[in-house]
């Protein structure tokens, strides 16, 4: 577990190849010998789960394109033919549509994990921002993909989202016409959304490479938020320790995924999307996919069109500034008694906004959405900067090994090596 330089290929052919393209050494250094903190808990397995979900979405997505037709007159029928005629088509489509949901389940857990344990703090700011970019690309990809079946929710979801751009002063209408390729969402829109939906996952894969690269430069954070000081005491090798733990967590996650695909494949979807798109009739109650609901609630909480759109995009953009908004010198929430309370209130706030996003925008729902929107922004702009000043953190152990030994009842007073 001492880093990449120790790798020596066993065979003569391996040595010949390694001296020309050291890819085996790179993999060995990144995923086998790589030192990983010995105190990682199961919240740290979601990076691996997300990698799996990206591959699963790309594989199921590519085979679905072999049967899908991106044309307003044919798209809906081609999706139905995937469901009824194509061999295993129902399975591939349900795996893909529920896969998107599972991807977002995993990314939200991964993000909240990062917030709780302060994984965005120096020196991991770039790592965190790359993650925010991946999340933005995921949101765009999910939205584009949801348009493709050309059902009522596809069409009206696409209409509402693209209309966000009409809120831009002066050039808004021209930009929206340019995005549509017409005067409303139509065939040119569907065609380009299909092209972009195919493209973006590969862009995500590219940013994931940068994300993992940045991670391996600064090293993993861990539940105690202490850097590895002594590789032999504080770390274990990525393989077998992290690989096995990640694999076990992935299998548990796949059980949940399979339950959705095989037992309740339409639970997270919307019945209106089994009605073909009709540009002359809007469904009575438009809701986006569940993973956008908190942002949809923020959009509707602001009683002005431009203001709502700014607040919605701002609620995502503010994540990129998190490393500088949190002023506390202690990294992990484990040693921050007040932060813990505000963090869990923030989690509840996001869940509450999600619930309100699915409800009609009227009466008490709007008032509640405004309160929660205030807390959402307040958490970033007021609470986090002030907590660093007013909170008294608990004492942080001197090293990861000390933290682990203290937790297991052993004396923390082991002699340092």
């Amino acid at each position, binding site marked *: 577990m001492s880093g990449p330089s120790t790798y020596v290929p066993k065979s003569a052919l391996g040595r010949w190849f390694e001296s020309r393209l050291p890819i085996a050494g790179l993999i060995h250094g990144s995923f086998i010998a790589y030192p990983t903190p010995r105190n990682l808990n199961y919240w740290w397995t979601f990076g691996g789960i997300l990698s799996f979900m990206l591959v699963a979405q790309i594989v199921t997505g590519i085979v679905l394109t072999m049967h899908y037709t991106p044309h307003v007159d044919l798209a809906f029928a081609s999706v139905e033919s995937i469901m009824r005629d194509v061999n295993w088509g129902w399975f591939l489509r349900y795996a893909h549509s529920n896969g998107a949901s599972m991807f977002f389940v995993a990314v939200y857990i991964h993000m909240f994990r990062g917030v709780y344990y302060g994984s965005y703090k120096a020196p991991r700011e770039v790592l965190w921002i790359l993650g925010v970019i991946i999340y933005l690309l995921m949101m765009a990809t999910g939205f584009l993909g949801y348009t493709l079946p050309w059902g009522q929710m596809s069409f009206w979801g696409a209409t509402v989202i*693209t209309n966000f751009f009409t809120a831009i002063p002066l050039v808004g209408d021209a930009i929206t016409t340019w995005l549509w*390729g017409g005067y409303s969402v*139509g065939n*040119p829109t569907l065609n380009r959304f299909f092209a972009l939906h195919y493209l973006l996952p590969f862009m995500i894969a590219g940013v994931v490479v940068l994300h993992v690269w940045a991670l391996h430069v600064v090293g993993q954070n861990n539940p105690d938020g202490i850097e590895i000081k002594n590789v032999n005491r504080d770390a274990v090798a990525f393989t077998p320790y992290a690989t096995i733990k990640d694999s076990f967590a992935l299998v548990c996650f796949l059980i949940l995924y399979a339950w959705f695909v095989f037992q309740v494949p339409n639970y997270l979807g919307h019945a209106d999307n089994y009605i073909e798109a009709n540009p*002359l009739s809007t469904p009575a109650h438009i809701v986006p996919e569940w993973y956008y609901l908190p942002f949809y609630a923020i959009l509707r909480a602001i009683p002005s069109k*431009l203001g709502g759109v700014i607040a919605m995009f701002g609620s995502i953009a503010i994540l990129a500034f998190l490393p500088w908004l949190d002023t506390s010198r202690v990294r992990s929430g484990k040693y921050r008694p007040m932060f813990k309370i505000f963090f869990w209130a923030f989690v509840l706030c996001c869940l509450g906004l999600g619930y309100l996003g699915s409800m009609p925008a009227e009466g008490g729902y709007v008032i509640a959405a405004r309160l929660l929107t205030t807390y959402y922004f307040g958490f970033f702009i007021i609470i986090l900067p002030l907590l660093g000043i007013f909170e008294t953190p608990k004492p942080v152990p001197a090293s990861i090994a000390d933290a682990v030994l203290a937790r297991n009842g052993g004396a923390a007073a082991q002699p340092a090596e």
Partner: protein
Amino acid sequence: MATSSTVEPTRRDFLFIATGAAGAVGVGAVAWPLISQMNPDASTLAMASIEVDISAVPLGSIMTVKWRGKPVFVRHRTPKEIQEATSVPLAELPDPETDKQRVQKPEWLVVVGICTHLGCVPIGQAGSRGDYDGWFCPCHGSQYDTSGRIRRGPAPKNLEVPTYSFLSDTKLKIG
């Protein structure tokens, strides 16, 4: 060459700037087709106007026609509805416009059936026309009056009046 302290630009400086400028123009010239291809194409622009026969629209009802992929409401207004539209003080309107500015013949209101908030189609069936007798948008609750003007809700503007003209008493050209 960088050691020279003279301020006088050299021939090489000129060549650097000229090459860079030519490169930037070249990149721009190639980028423009890639951006412009996303704007409405010739076939979309060719569909830009339609003719509508309005003789079959009874008094008090609304016909919906499709123009540029969007619904257009052609409303045959009753005297009561015209009265409602003309009697509102401008000060009460979020987007002040008189009814006269929005119609060519008082009995015919022609508006694009797209809510100016986020693009849903407002509902205009009798009985669900909202508090102002016009249209009600089911998405986010905007209410329009009998002149298609926004009265309440998140929409910032009145329903758009498309370019149209009467070819005869019963024939309308939209676009």
